[in-house]
């Protein structure tokens, strides 16, 4: 009977556990998490912090879910080291759990700002359900807030401020939000969305330090220009640090994340990784890449589980990830790898509609759609087909995309 151990009960770990139980009914499966609750919907906790969604529907599994499947779940259990020679996982209380096959699905932790005051009360990060509960409590009482981190997670803080009637200043280092994927024209639509909910984007700013009161509570964010932004709380979302510190003694290949092939296998036998923390071989891109999205993490967990149970390379990960922002009146969808590539095309259609497509070697590798999401499945289809289309930008930028207008695919 094979013993599987999964570290992490986020969507990737949990989806692997479910797959393993289906594929290997007689095996022993243990899921270890340092959180105090079983899998919940991490991409809905922002709705809770906004005050729009109660707790109950955010939970995905209760403990009975694991019992019913004969999966051992260890909550509040932190893995401190892994010994891949002995094939054991060491727990914070000194005990060992042995494995035949191991899945590392430990995701990341929000990176702290390396500035004075960043550990003050009221300087908040956003990753766990517990974080969301605290953010909600603060936002319900607060009048003003400061937000730092001009990316996909920072904007959730802006949305919480908007929904909870908190006046926000959103401090950004450059001249726009998510400058790696959006031009000024596209970003301006997002800036207007922020202003419409009462959050003011502040450009060429950032953070120098936080001021605190005698109780250690944050009172203001001060930017490098010396501008002071009073706040009852500050939301910091400057990036993720992958949870791999417990692997420091393990000879795993790392490259800002755990390197895996398309089967989710690491360089070590019987050790797999899945979810946000992988640098996986992207068969569509033809190189290693990273995704930070729910759908991708879930699929990587499923693929890892399938290959672990088969003890072989049964199914590869082939996926176009997408990530939406739904906080404003207009939708936003980023797909694939919008910040990669060697060429791009973009167009603005109205005050709330904009599109950008990124190409590498003539093929679509990602993009961003604001306002009109209709072409998403066509662009994803072209990505999967690996079709060279960068020479036909007009067709791709037409308001209504018709793939029949593309010149016939050439033999590659």
């Amino acid at each position, binding site marked *: 009977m094979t013993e599987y151990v999964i570290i992490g009960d986020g969507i990737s770990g949990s989806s692997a556990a479910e797959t393993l139980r289906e594929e290997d009914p007689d095996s022993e499966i243990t899921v270890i998490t340092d959180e105090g609750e079983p899998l919940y*919907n991490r*991409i809905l906790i922002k709705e809770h912090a906004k005050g729009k969604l109660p707790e109950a*529907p955010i939970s995905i599994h209760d403990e009975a879910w694991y019992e019913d499947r004969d999966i051992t779940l260890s909550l509040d259990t932190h893995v401190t080291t892994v010994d891949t020679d002995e094939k054991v996982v060491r727990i914070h209380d000194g005990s060992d759990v042995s494995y035949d096959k191991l899945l590392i699905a430990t995701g990341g932790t929000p990176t702290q700002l390396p500035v004075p005051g960043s550990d003050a009360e009221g300087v908040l990060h956003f990753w766990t359900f517990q974080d969301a509960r605290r953010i909600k409590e603060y936002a319900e009482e607060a009048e003003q807030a400061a937000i730092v981190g001009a990316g996909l997670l920072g904007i959730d803080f802006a949305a919480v401020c908007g929904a909870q009637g908190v006046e926000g200043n959103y401090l950004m280092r450059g001249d726009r939000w998510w400058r790696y994927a959006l031009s000024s024209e596209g970003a301006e639509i997002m800036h207007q969305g922020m202003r419409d909910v009462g959050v003011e984007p502040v450009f060429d700013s950032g953070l120098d330090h936080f001021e605190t009161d005698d109780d250690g509570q944050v009172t203001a964010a001060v930017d490098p220009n010396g501008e002071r932004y009073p706040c009852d709380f500050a939301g910091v979302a400057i990036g993720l640090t992958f949870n791999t510190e417990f692997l420091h003694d393990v000879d795993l290949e790392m490259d800002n994340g755990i390197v895996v092939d398309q089967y989710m296998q690491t360089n070590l036998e019987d050790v797999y990784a899945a979810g946000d923390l992988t640098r996986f071989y992207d068969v569509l891109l033809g190189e290693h890449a990273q995704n930070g999205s*729910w*759908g991708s993490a879930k699929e990587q967990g499923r693929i890892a589980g399938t290959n672990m149970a088969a003890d072989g390379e049964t199914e590869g990960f082939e996926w176009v990830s997408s990530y939406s922002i*739904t*906080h404003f009146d207009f939708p936003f969808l980023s797909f694939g790898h919008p910040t990669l590539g060697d060429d791009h095309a973009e167009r603005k259609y109205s005050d709330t509609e904009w599109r950008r497509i990124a190409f590498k070697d003539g093929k679509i590798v990602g993009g961003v759609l604001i306002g009109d999401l209709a072409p*998403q499945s066509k662009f994803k289809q072209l990505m999967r087909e690996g079709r060279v289309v960068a020479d036909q930008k007009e067709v791709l930028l037409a308001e209504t995309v018709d793939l029949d207008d593309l010149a016939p695919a050439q033999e590659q």
Partner: protein
Amino acid sequence: MSSSSTVGRTVTLRRTETVRSPPRVRHVDELSEDALARFYDLVTSGGGSAVTDLTGFVDGEIIVFTDYYRVSLE
């Protein structure tokens, strides 16, 4: 309200403000690519549309998009 007919069945989306204890709430990023396309068609059509595939939707669930939409399979 947006709806689509299939042989004998209709998918209907209704905007909703309240979420008490629905059987299931999903974020739009949990939909499969096809279900997202069908969902988006329904949202933007604002009325009868050509969406005919019900797979990927569950009666009574709420989908979180730019508004909250309650799904009815009738």
